[in-house]
């Protein structure tokens, strides 16, 4: 089991007059290699749930087991190391560090881990950038790349440490339809080739329909959790 949530609650402003609960007892289990879409209207708690799953925020109540270990109450340093080793992130905006080239952005996790980029780590980064179709843009800065290309770099970066799970927060939300389809097809291909699990937050039902499983949050509760029939054909691999 990759993820196991039991009775997860999240409250903000604890003890204050404006205390508010945004997640009301979420139960969720995610297997290794799943491709899951997380949907819901604005304010439904998707981003909060994704942040908790990504060990960026702490839950208020309940239990969260990641790869079988409870992460509740772990110190910040331990959460950071687990984040580094287990999770990859793809964000909607501000994906990359603007001062680093595409290749450097992808090797950042390796640099962060070892203090230097080893030859195998660089080779792997090149291979990933090649796989996402950016073999010719290795030394370009993010400002020289299109939105779709930047998101591809972010995907390569999320995969460079071989995490079993990638969390993607509206990865196509900032892209036009064509780029959006390309990026989503890329995620599916990586999932198929590498077996990496994906949890993708999206507002787009068209993209959600291309996932294996759909979890819908409404007002901080799981309103729907079901398998999705592949309604649309895969875009051809690039």
């Amino acid at each position, binding site marked *: 089991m990759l993820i196991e949530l039991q009775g997860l609650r999240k409250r903000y402003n604890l003890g204050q007059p404006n205390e508010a609960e945004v997640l009301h007892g979420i139960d969720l289990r995610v297997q290794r290699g799943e491709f899951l879409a997380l949907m819901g209207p604005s304010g439904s708690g998707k981003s909060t749930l994704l*942040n908790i799953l*990504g060990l*960026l*925020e702490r839950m208020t109540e309940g239990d969260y087991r990641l790869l079988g270990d409870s992460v509740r109450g772990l110190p*910040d*340093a331990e959460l*950071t*190391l687990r*984040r*580094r*080793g287990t999770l990859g*992130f793809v*964000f909607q905006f*501000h*994906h*990359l*560090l*603007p*001062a*680093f080239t595409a290749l*450097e952005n992808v090797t*950042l*996790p390796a*640099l*962060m*881990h070892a*203090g*230097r980029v080893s030859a195998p780590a660089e080779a792997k980064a090149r291979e990933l950038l090649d796989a996402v179709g950016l073999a010719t843009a290795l030394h370009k800065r993010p400002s020289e790349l299109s939105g779709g290309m930047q998101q591809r770099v972010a995907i390569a*970066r999320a995969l460079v440490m071989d995490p079993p799970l990638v969390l993607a927060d509206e990865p196509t939300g900032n892209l036009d339809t064509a780029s959006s389809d390309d990026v989503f097809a890329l995620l599916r291909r990586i999932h198929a080739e590498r077996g990496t699990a994906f949890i993708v937050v999206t507002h787009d039902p068209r993209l959600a329909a291309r996932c294996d499983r759909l979890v819908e949050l409404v007002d901080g509760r799981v309103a729907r959790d079901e398998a999705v029939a592949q309604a649309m054909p895969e875009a051809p691999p690039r």
Partner: protein
Amino acid sequence: MRRYWPGFEWQVAWRFLREGRMQTLLIIVGVAAGVAVVAYISALIEGLQANTLAKTLGAQAHISLRAPEDLVAPAARLEAGTAVLSDTQPRAQRLRSVANWQALLPVLQATPGVAAVSPMVSGSGLALRGEAALAIALLGVELERYDRIVNLRSKVVAGRASLQPGEAIIGRELAADLGLRVGDRLTLRTGLVSDAARVTALVDLGVKGLNRRTVIVPLRAAQNLQGLPGGATHLDLTVTDVWAAQALADSLRRQHPLRVESWQESNAQLVSALNAQSVSTTIIRAVVLVVVVLGIASVLVVSVVQKGREIGILRAMGATRGQMQRIFLLQGAVVGALGSLLGIALAVALVWAFTTFVRGLDGLPLFAITVPVPTALRVALIATLCGVLAAVAPARRAAAMDPAQAIRM
């Protein structure tokens, strides 16, 4: 355990600095200006003080030993429980010799910290030439020993220093007042006797008042003129460390029943002025460094806010709080170090400008100043540490950032 090389922190710190190019450049120039002021003021004050000390101590001993004062001994010891009203008139101080100075000389010479010892007979008299008669300070010395005290040979402006029997070295202004040139003769008179001497050299002792009244003759001649056969009124000492003179004087005072005076005691006002100058300089330097620290800190605080998203992304990717802290501490150190290098170069340029363009009334440079390498290194090290210190608060702020919030910024 594997040694951790902070390559990640270096890379990110350096890229962050390069990314905010104008901001980085401005703060480096700011640090450089501060470092230049500190280094220049340090060099200027060190040069000024060294010059003042050299001029002051160039014409006097570091420590001077004299015979104790003549005191009036009470006629009878008072009995216990009695009180007496008395008015004792102090005795006039006659010229006296330091008792047994010949035996004392090698003892002083062997004292640790003493560089040279010179006996002297010092008294007053008249210098006569033709109709002119001028009051003088008559110094009797052994030239070789006295030269080691005040470096007399370096002060010769005409003739060649020599003090054979019947010879004298006199101040430049006195020579002018008496119309004397090297080789001329003059008559020296004290209350008791007269003697004639031939001028071998004119000297500039650095102070016109001294030049106007100083006549230096052989020790034996002065002994005869002052009526102190075989005597020496002073034993002059130079020490290896001028600032240790006071401690050595205190020690000698405890060991010998003599009047001992250090150069600090005989120049109390100068020492106070030098101390006040040093304190003022230290205050200025401290204020400048505080401004430097605040400048770097303010830029880095802004940088933490500007880089909020990047900090969030790095934290999400697994950068630890420690790594985030080190990224900003390194930025502070780099700004401090680069600012120091530029600042030292600026200080050297300022010193060059000072020595090249600022001249005294005589058209010569006022005094020599340099930026010594140890001073430069010290200032650079302090500025770099200030950079790190300035980065502490921003670094802590960066490390404390909530990654989830930072990403949403």
